[in-house]
């Protein structure tokens, strides 16, 4: 497609930032999911979307944007981070497109670009790389207000990776890699 024939967003009259979609297609193939090109905008995904009412996520709009080449714009859009991961859109899509997984891929791209990761992800990553789990064992209150941890409840220790150094080293290596081989 030449520059002149590319799709223009009629609301802002902007043209999509040029994105190489081959990498997206390659990742989607590994995940076994259909290309967003197959989406015919039936909006079944959006009608069941758990984040639509409160956070205005519209999976069919995201698919329309990606299909039209506005991939980079979607990568940088906050709205992707409101996806709950309930998988209703994937389950109900008549075209085997999976908005939820396409959004995971786009979020991966956002993170790979080095921009700040939203919410508690940074903290969860840090815990995972130092303890092996997303959070430390919490002390919780029983119905008499007494604080309890695993030990007090006679639950066995859960140790995490035996060689924590090796484990965190390999995770940091993976953090800069992608699902597909180049």
């Amino acid at each position, binding site marked *: 497609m030449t520059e002149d024939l590319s799709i223009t967003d009629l609301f802002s009259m902007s043209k999509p930032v040029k994105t190489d979609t081959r990498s997206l297609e390659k990742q989607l193939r590994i995940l076994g999911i259909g290309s967003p090109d197959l989406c015919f905008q039936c909006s079944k995904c959006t009608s069941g979307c758990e984040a639509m009412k409160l956070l205005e996520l519209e999976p069919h709009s995201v698919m329309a944007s990606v299909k039209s080449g506005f991939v980079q714009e979607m990568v940088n859009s906050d709205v992707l981070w409101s996806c*709950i991961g309930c998988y209703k859109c994937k389950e109900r899509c008549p075209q085997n497109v999976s908005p939820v997984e396409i959004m995971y891929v786009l979020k991966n791209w956002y993170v790979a670009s080095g921009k700040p990761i939203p919410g508690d992800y940074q903290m969860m990553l840090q815990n995972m790389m130092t303890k*092996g789990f997303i959070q430390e*064992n919490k002390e919780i209150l029983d119905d008499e207000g007494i604080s309890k941890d695993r030990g007090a*409840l006679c639950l066995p220790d859960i140790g*995490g990776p035996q060689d924590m150094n090796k484990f965190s080293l390999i995770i940091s290596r993976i953090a800069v890699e992608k699902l*597909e081989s180049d």
Partner: protein
Amino acid sequence: MARSMGLYPGCVTSTEQYNYEMSIREVLPELGIELVDVENTSCCGSPFKSINLLMQTYLSARNIAIFEMQGLDMYTPCPQCHLSLVETKNRMNESSDLREKVNSLLMEEEGLKYKGNVNIYHTLNLLHDIVGLDMISEKVKRPLGMNIACHEGCQTVRYTEAGRPDRSEHPEKMERIIRTLGGTASYYSDELNCCGAPLMVTHKESAITKAGEKLKAVKDRGFEAMAIVCPFGGRVLDSKQDRASETIGEKIGLPVFYLTQLIGISMGKDPTSLGLNLNRSPVGRLLK
């Protein structure tokens, strides 16, 4: 004859939803499932799908490999872990490139090798398909006699292609188990609605509001209690029910139990051994 099963509790159950883990350890051995604790495990990677899908795949494959090397099938009480593990298995089986890539990383780390021959169970299919309703029924000493709303949780039932513990629309295994325990359960229109818990990472207020909406829907339909099989659900529907009540401006007061706690109650187990003193929702009034 007892069947051995490696227990993979996952992050949320093992670090805060102790009542789920306690009831599992109390109840399953009596139902013929011998639970084996496995060392060297880590997060399944599910929370990091948004960050890096290779990281998720690696972490799930790593845990599968550890169980596999000990010749154990895997049982995880967490639907998120379960989905991450089975979808990793599917991806690794389908893409030899990915399998090679992940295996070379695993080998490098600590001599682990992923083959993908383990069976992976979640609480719901373990109880319904492996233990079976007959076995559960034999153990019931105190029929529940409550009208209970089942909340399977999103990833327990979706997505079908991955192979889930129950079907995606009108799931029924949990209802059958509740009926076996002497309770009543029926499908309700909000059953498949999400509890909101995964939003706690990025949108805390919305997460709690969704929990409030779900609880209200259940209460308004006249159910006396709710049964869950997901530690993320427990995190908001039970542990944060007071805050969820505030978001909808109404005192909810709905007892929320883990399914394994309800089985324990019907077996006549001591409530403390099932961690019922750790539930934040008002479970006590139904135990009299």
